[in-house]
């Protein structure tokens, strides 16, 4: 009998037998632990599962799951080893846990190895080059100010919708020079690209495919406009003029667009939300911040660690190999659980706490390390820094009301809704 079920779509539903929700990770055999099912991530029950595996099976084989068998890599140093060994652990065919042939996926350089990866990344990384970031700072600040100034004081609203989504979407529209009034489509396409059918965003693969077709058509139109114009500083212009990308097939173009939208969208969004939540959970840190705004840049890195907006990245073993005593076979799926490595107390002291003046705050795993290290990392940090500078100028306290709603995913670690009330500064 095959270990791989006929339909990962069905078996990743909340109510499927694969869900670990409500179960005690210490009261079940180690072999049964399956981190991949989205249930425990949505219900915020994942931390004890990560801890048990770190302690008792740091390189853990899950033989049966809704998405087939896979290895979980739980410790910081082992994750580093995998991440920095692309000759052993390939990013092809995909960096998601669901195998490419089971689901509609588009190629992009995140799921390529050298040399093709390097060729394509080099073309687009100019858009986030430090000189470009300097040019964007003023625009990001004025947008953050406008968004924050428009918020209601003393009454409940959804921070995710009014701030986190709005700010990051505006940022993306700028990077692509995308029609500003249609920017909500960028958010929609990004969410659809990573959605699990049945999880609340799309109901079927067909629905997803339709949305992706619309995305491709829109970006093809923009490509055709930009390719005939002078090269500009936006992403589409760079792709349509770059030597390594100007002849790329439509599916690859769509894939790289989606990569840049997804990469810059819910990750930054969920870090903005996560920072507010974390400061509410650790009020002494919020006091520290109020007393010293110069802590903001370090705090940003610590928030990104604490949130870990992408819980994992997947690799595929190119050869038989060994990791922390475990023998991995060629072709095996290997999951680097960044969300676990960022909680590894062998490397990070008191990892469950937000500590905004933590030393070595940048050594977290959330951006990955090695060739695939997040290209947008300084842009993300800049957005977060600016938004917190503007927040601290305006509000004494952002009070979270109740529990946030988390996203149904073991990959995207974030929030679909968080109710807050704003308390202005005394003066």
């Amino acid at each position, binding site marked *: 009998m095959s270990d791989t079920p006929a339909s990962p779509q069905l078996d990743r539903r909340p109510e499927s037998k694969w869900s670990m929700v409500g179960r005690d990770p210490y009261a079940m055999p180690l072999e049964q632990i399956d981190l991949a099912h989205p249930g425990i991530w949505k219900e915020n029950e994942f931390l004890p599962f990560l801890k048990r595996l770190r302690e008792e099976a740091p390189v853990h084989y899950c033989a049966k799951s809704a998405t087939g068998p896979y290895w979980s890599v739980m410790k910081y140093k082992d994750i580093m080893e995998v991440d920095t060994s692309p000759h052993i652990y390939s990013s092809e065919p995909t960096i998601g846990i669901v195998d490419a042939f089971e689901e509609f996926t588009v190629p992009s350089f995140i799921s390529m190895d050298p040399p093709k990866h*390097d060729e394509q990344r080099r073309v687009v990384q100019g858009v986030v080059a*430090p000189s470009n970031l300097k040019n964007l700072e003023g625009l990001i600040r004025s947008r953050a100010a406008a968004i924050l100034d428009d918020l209601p004081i003393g009454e409940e609203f959804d921070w995710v919708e009014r701030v986190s989504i709005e700010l990051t979407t505006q940022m993306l529209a700028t990077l692509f020079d995308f029609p500003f009034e249609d920017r909500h489509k960028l958010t929609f396409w990004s969410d659809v690209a990573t959605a699990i059918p049945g999880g609340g965003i799309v109901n079927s693969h067909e629905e997803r495919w339709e949305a992706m077709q619309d995305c491709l058509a829109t970006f093809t139109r923009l490509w055709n406009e930009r390719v005939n114009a002078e090269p500009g500083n936006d992403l589409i212009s760079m792709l349509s003029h770059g030597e390594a990308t100007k002849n790329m097939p439509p599916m690859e173009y769509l894939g790289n667009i989606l990569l840049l939208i997804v990469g810059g969208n819910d990750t930054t969004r969920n870090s903005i939300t996560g920072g507010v939540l974390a400061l509410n959970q650790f009020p002494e840190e919020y006091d520290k911040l109020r007393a010293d705004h110069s802590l903001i840049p370090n705090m940003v890195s610590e928030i990104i660690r604490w949130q870990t907006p992408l819980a994992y990245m997947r690799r595929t073993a190119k050869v038989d190999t060994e990791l922390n005593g475990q023998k991995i076979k060629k072709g095996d799926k290997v999951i680097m659980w960044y969300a676990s490595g960022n909680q590894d107390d062998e490397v990070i002291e008191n990892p469950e706490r937000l500590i905004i003046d933590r030393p070595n705050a940048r050594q977290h795993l959330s*951006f990955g*390390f090695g*060739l695939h290290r997040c290209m947008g990392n300084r842009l993300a940090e800049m957005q977060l820094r600016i938004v917190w500078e503007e927040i601290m100028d305006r509000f004494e306290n952002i009070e979270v009301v109740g529990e946030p709603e988390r996203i149904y995913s073991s990959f995207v670690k974030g929030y679909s809704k968080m109710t807050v009330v704003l308390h202005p500064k005394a003066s």
Partner: protein
Amino acid sequence: MVKILFKDHTGNERSVEAAAGISVMQAAVSNGVPGIDADCGGSCSCATCHVYVDEAWVGKLTAMDANEDAMLGLSSDRRGNSRLCCQITLSEELDGLMVTTPEFQF
């Protein structure tokens, strides 16, 4: 002890003394030299310790390996004298080494 002169893109100079055997990156970080972030802690995995080595010293360094070359290839503003300074190990022969930190690391 080995002397290293760190220059920044504006021409500011900062002289540091460090023990042979540690990397230029470690010398920078432990002496608070700005412009070298070293996110990965020295494992050639983040390219945030990029420096331009003064021409007189380029040939005296151990040649870069494929990993360093790959990471530099994805870094901003790579030049002929670019190195990741976590990969430069200090020795008595490098006493007086001069490097410049790039503008984009500020």
